[in-house]
């Protein structure tokens, strides 16, 4: 599975706004490039990213060929309750990766 780096604060106050960061290794081949022998290199990108907080979707992004390799996504949410935050990436050629992080809200 692809190497991913996620950053979620381990602890947060109830109602606090927290920063979430997700970085994943992927070459994001655009599908517009040619090999040295002139063959078109097939597109191979991550097409979708979803983040769920205790099962509820809080962030979603569609990715396109212009996105750079190793896409980095950062966003904010409000810490409402303790639980798990799950990250899912899906893409071409059956690419699928999942990561999760626990958060404790006091």
């Amino acid at each position: 599975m692809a190497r991913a780096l996620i950053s979620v604060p381990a602890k947060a106050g109830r109602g606090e706004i927290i920063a979430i960061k997700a970085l994943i290794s992927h070459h994001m081949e655009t599908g517009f490039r040619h090999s040295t022998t002139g063959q078109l290199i097939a597109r191979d990108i991550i097409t979708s990213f979803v983040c769920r907080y205790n099962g509820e979707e809080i962030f979603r992004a569609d990715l396109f060929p212009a996105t750079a390799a190793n896409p980095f996504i950062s966003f904010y949410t409000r810490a409402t309750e303790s639980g798990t935050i799950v990250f899912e990436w899906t893409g071409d050629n059956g690419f699928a990766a999942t990561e999760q992080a626990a958060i404790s809200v006091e």
Partner: protein
Amino acid sequence: MKAPRPLRAKTIVMVTLAVVASPIAAGEIPADQRRSSYDVMSHETQAMQDDDASNPGMLWVLDGEALWHLKTGTADKACTDCHGEASASMKGIATRYPAFDAERGRALDLTQRINLCRNEHQNATSLPYESKELLALTAYVARLSRGLPIADPAADERLGASIEAGRQTFNRRQGQLNLTCAQCHDDNWNKQLAGNPVTQGQVTGYPLYRLEWQGIGSLQRRMRNCMIGMRAEPFEYGAPELVDLELFMKWRSRGLRIETPAVRP
């Protein structure tokens, strides 16, 4: 008498030559002016490097950590079986490479040392230059020296000849553009080239993540890029000339702190 005339012309020619010749004498950057090109990057790129959660080079570092613990080769040994935990045994190693190898009688860089270890102790094949695995292992080891000052390679007398050979390559005109490394990186580092800072070429962050490469690359890759830019025939990966040049670059950067994995535009 009409004698003075030709003499005066000669004097003018000599004075002109002296004026033209003086800026060519390359000057070493004084220690108090040496700085990493981190300082001239945009704040966004600096922020990307500073935060391990956003630094894409960390993806390679994590891969390297996994490889460090992976048994490989016919000896079925992992790096840990000899070196233990890298956090203790590999701290500061990257500040001292390229280092002199007594058995081979020449300098070896960190990637060559890793491959020798694989050949001799793990009975494994060498990893190709710029392969994901070799860059990952190198980045992992080098990151353990982050924040430590680069050692002066001239402290090892056996490296003197290599440093000198590297210095000569650095100051030798190359390629169709007929440039030396020093003309940019010693003489014009505070200027711009095509809108970008020239930089001093300090080797604090290798292997580093270049946004242009969309990946991590070694110092040798960067130096080969420069040579292609000068329209010179670059040395092959692992060539002794490149290792000598790496060593001289390390000498130029002595005292600056390791930033691996750095992020550069």
